[in-house]
Structure formats: C-alpha cells, structure tokens
C-alpha cells in the first residue's frame, strides 16, 4: 500500500480546521506570502508555518521564493484521492444493491 501513506497524509492534512482555512485562503487568492496568511489567524507565524508544512507534505501546497518572501500556492490534485475514495465506496454499494435487486428479481 504505497499510496496509502500519501492518502492518509491528505486526510490528516484536511482534518484540521486551521489547515482547511489555509486551503480556502490560498484557493481564493491563488498565492499568498506567509505574513498575509498569519494575519488571518489567532496564532503565531511558527504555528501557521507548521500547518503549512503538513499541507506541503501532503502535496496540497507548493512554495516559491520571491526575493526574501516565501509564497504559498494551493495544489488541489491530491484532493482527487479523497473524491476517488468516496466514489469507490459509492460504486461498490451501487453495484452490490444492483445484485440485491437481481436477487429479489427486480431487474
């Protein structure tokens, strides 16, 4: 399950309200420097950085240096996994219930 860890990271990453808010902010702005992100929270720069590091590990955030500034961008691709995973269960049960209907001779 090599993908499992990556997947879990995505879930862990979005499991926290601060990190979800960070994703929202980045989704709306496209790109923001750390100080602007920090300004949105009741916590210090270090705490926000830690949250951003977790998002970065999950591949949900990318970083670029512009002069002395670190700017963050959102990368939504890994979120596809969450969607795929829910779809997997949806399809599984739709398939099973269609077998149930066959069993009850309803198809």
């Amino acid at each position: 399950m090599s993908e499992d860890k990556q997947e879990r990271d995505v879930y862990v990453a979005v499991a926290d309200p601060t990190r979800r808010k960070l994703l929202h902010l980045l989704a709306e702005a496209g790109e923001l420097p750390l100080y602007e992100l920090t300004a949105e929270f009741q916590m210090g720069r270090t705490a926000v950085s830690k949250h951003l590091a977790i998002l970065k590990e999950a591949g949900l955030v990318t970083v670029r240096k512009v002069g002395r500034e670190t700017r963050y961008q959102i990368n939504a691709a890994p979120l596809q996994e969450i969607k795929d995973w829910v779809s997997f269960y949806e399809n599984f049960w739709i398939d099973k219930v269609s077998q149930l209907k066959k069993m009850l001779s309803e198809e």
Partner: protein
Amino acid sequence: MADVSLDFQFTSSVEQVWKALTDSDMLAQWIWKNDFTPVIGEKFQFRSEPNEWWDGIVNGEVLEVEEPHILSYTWASAGETTTITWTLKTGSDGMTHLHFEQTGFSEQTKATKGAIEGAKYSWTNFGEQLKKLIEA
C-alpha cells in the same frame, strides 16, 4: 467527512428488503460470505476473495437494529473503520425506499468530525469548494 449517501427503490416490501439486508444466507448472495446476525453488539465478518492489495476481510459490529426500518453496523476494512446505516421506508408511491449511508472514516476522520463542528467552514462547503478546485 465526505460521506456516501445513496437512495434505492424496490417493488419488494419493506419486510422482504429487510430480510435481504439481515439474513446471512441472503447477504452472501449480494455481498459476500459472512456470519452476520442482526443483534446489537454482535460482531461479524464478511469475506471476499483476497487480492494483492487487500486481505478480503471486513470486520463489523452491529450497532442498531429496528426491524424493519433501521439497520446500522460498523464496517472495518483495510485500516478504515466506517459506519453503515440502512434506512427502509414505504413511500407514498407504495415502493420500498432504501437509504444507504456510510460515514466516518478512520481515526483521522473521527478527529475531522470533531474539528468540523468547531470549524468556520462546514465540510459540505469545503467539499463543494474542493469539487470546484478538482474539476477546474
């Protein structure tokens, strides 16, 4: 957390569908071999063909049995523990309406649920936004 929510209609009676959802032999015909009994607190196993990614085993425990309307159990497999709830109703159209929900995925997800309650953004909105982002 993103939940799975599905609706089905049957021409069979609520009782017939209930039996198909709770009788071990019938369950084996549309899900997998199992030792399911519709008794609260009873543990059960469903066994599918294992493959290289999955041992094929689902472990569960019955949480709620309100014959013939509500059946709920845990569904634990491949490191994810979820809760499945089936709700059956007779509709005004005379059809049996079967509603399926699967919620709460893994420890992180349970944490998520707690987090969501206090979160400024609801998961639903977040999910909508994610969808937009993903589909963009």
